[in-house]
């Protein structure tokens, strides 16, 4: 059965120490979450959260840019205006629209990726308990099997947790 061990810490250093102790037992970063009322920065290697948001943004931009260019090309050829010998489709004359659509694609992709990566639209741990964080403190939540809860609680206390709770899925 899956349980959650939640430790409350007063500072980032002790939370980082707890994460290190727990990860020494081959616990994956995916099973750990830190809750706080403001962004918390850990040193590199403590709890890295690699992201592909920049890549998604670039790909979104390229896709929208290409699609809009193709759409304009189709539209211009669908009803050929008399252009007096000038090209029916001119990249430079429609470049502004391509640029704006590229940027729109990048913006939409960034936002969509944010929603996905933050878990706001992909509720992975829908039933996981969310600790109430006091201003100025932070909570470390670990998902583990029931028999691992004891040493996880102990590791958090050793690292300086001011309170440790064990909770099941809500």
């Amino acid at each position, binding site marked *: 059965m899956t349980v959650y061990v939640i430790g409350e810490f007063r500072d980032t250093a002790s939370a980082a120490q707890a994460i290190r102790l727990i990860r020494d037992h081959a616990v994956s970063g995916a099973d750990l*979450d*830190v*809750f*706080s*009322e*403001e*962004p*918390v920065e850990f040193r590199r290697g403590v*709890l890295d*959260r690699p*992201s592909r*948001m*920049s890549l998604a*943004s670039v790909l979104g931009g390229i896709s929208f840019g290409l699609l809009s260019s193709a*759409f*304009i090309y189709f*539209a*211009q050829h*669908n*009803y050929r*205006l008399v252009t007096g010998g000038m090209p029916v489709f*001119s990249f430079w*004359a*429609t470049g*502004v*629209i391509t*640029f*704006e*659509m590229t*940027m*729109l694609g*990048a*913006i*939409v992709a*960034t*936002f969509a*990726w*944010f*929603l996905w*990566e*933050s*878990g*706001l*639209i992909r*509720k992975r741990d829908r039933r996981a308990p*969310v600790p109430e*964080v006091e*201003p*100025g403190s932070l909570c470390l939540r670990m998902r583990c099997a029931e028999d691992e809860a004891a040493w996880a609680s102990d590791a958090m206390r050793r690292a300086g947790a001011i309170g440790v709770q064990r909770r099941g899925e809500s």
Partner: protein
Amino acid sequence: MASTPELLPYQRIREDLFRPLSGISRAYALTTAVAFVVGAAGLIAWGYQLRRGMGVTGLGRPVFWGFYIVDFVFWIGISHAGTLISAILRLTNAAWRKPVTRAAEAITVFALMIGGMFPIIHLGRAWLFYWLLPYPNSRLLWPNFRSPLLWDLTAIVTYMTGSVIYLYLPLIPDMAQLAEHNTPWRRKFYRALSLGWTGSDRQWHALERAMKLMACLILAVAVSVHTVVAWDFAMALAPMWHSTIFGPYFVAGAIFSGIAALILVMAALRKVLRLESYLTRRHFDNLARLLLLMSLLWLYFTVSENLTVWYGNDPKEMAVFGARTRAHYAPYFWTMVVLNFVIPFVVLGIRRLRTIANTAIAAGCVVVGMWLERFVIVVPTLANPRLASASGSYAPTWVEGAITAATFAAMVMLYMIFSKLFPIIAVWEFKPHEQEDE
């Protein structure tokens, strides 16, 4: 003396910044009522125009662009306050930006909403606005993608989308906090908008990454939007419009008017919402310096633009130049110079005079001056076209005046509503940080 906000305890910061969301003061109710009346008058004027046609405006041959296009360019310029300034300050990691950014981002969204209305008002037959959208009509004729007017549409849609997202993202953590202790309907409202934010490190990391990326993207879009607006004019072979510096000239002007609008809004919010401890003299001083810098840049562009025309002595261009500086439109032109350069230079340049009240006065002058600048750019050129026999004049009617006044009222009203629904300063960004102290 107001205490430095970073040194205030978090609980107090939270209470102070969430307090304006509840209760309605008399000043608030009165301001909203006045704005509503002026806005309603503008709606009636627009209704009158829709019923009677564009003949009720002062527009006619050869001046087909008057107050409406002036207002359009002006409001798009004001929209640069927010997102652009906020993005620059965020990317440069300026710690003093924290109480400024949300107020600025909200200006962008509202100014874009208002500015975006003007092409539709100017259409006359507003109900056919969807003809601007890229779909084929009954004869399979598509919109002309080479037209700068269509460029405008795409640029504004992109900027609007980006600005709304850029405003929304940092609101999420605050809305999650607001959902905790509130009246039932507000709780539902904030819970729905905060999308189940829990404050986990994954969410904070994603938010910070998204904000950084959005700041980069929005910078490029903001510059492109006002460049495209400038190209509406510059791509035409009209005297004093067909200029290579129009793009950067408009962008600089937009940032200039945007900063001025931001200062005005901040000064008003500081008084009305009693945020003296958060919007301190330091913030106004920094923005005043930026405004002064932009005033000098604006002067540089204005001189460059006019000097080359005067030196070139092209008769068609000189007709417009003369109309602007010596004839019919000279009072507007010189008032613009006084409001955009002389007053800000004196008031903001002398340190002793750079108080919050004086900064707000200088900003007010710049807002009016930049509206006049748009008028001086749009109207004299149309009144003095290349074909001399086609020249004419333009006198706006009460309909255009009422609609223009209504837009300012709409801005006030939208801001009033926003300040009652969302904290005007990002609370989660305002936690005490010793390292960010001056």
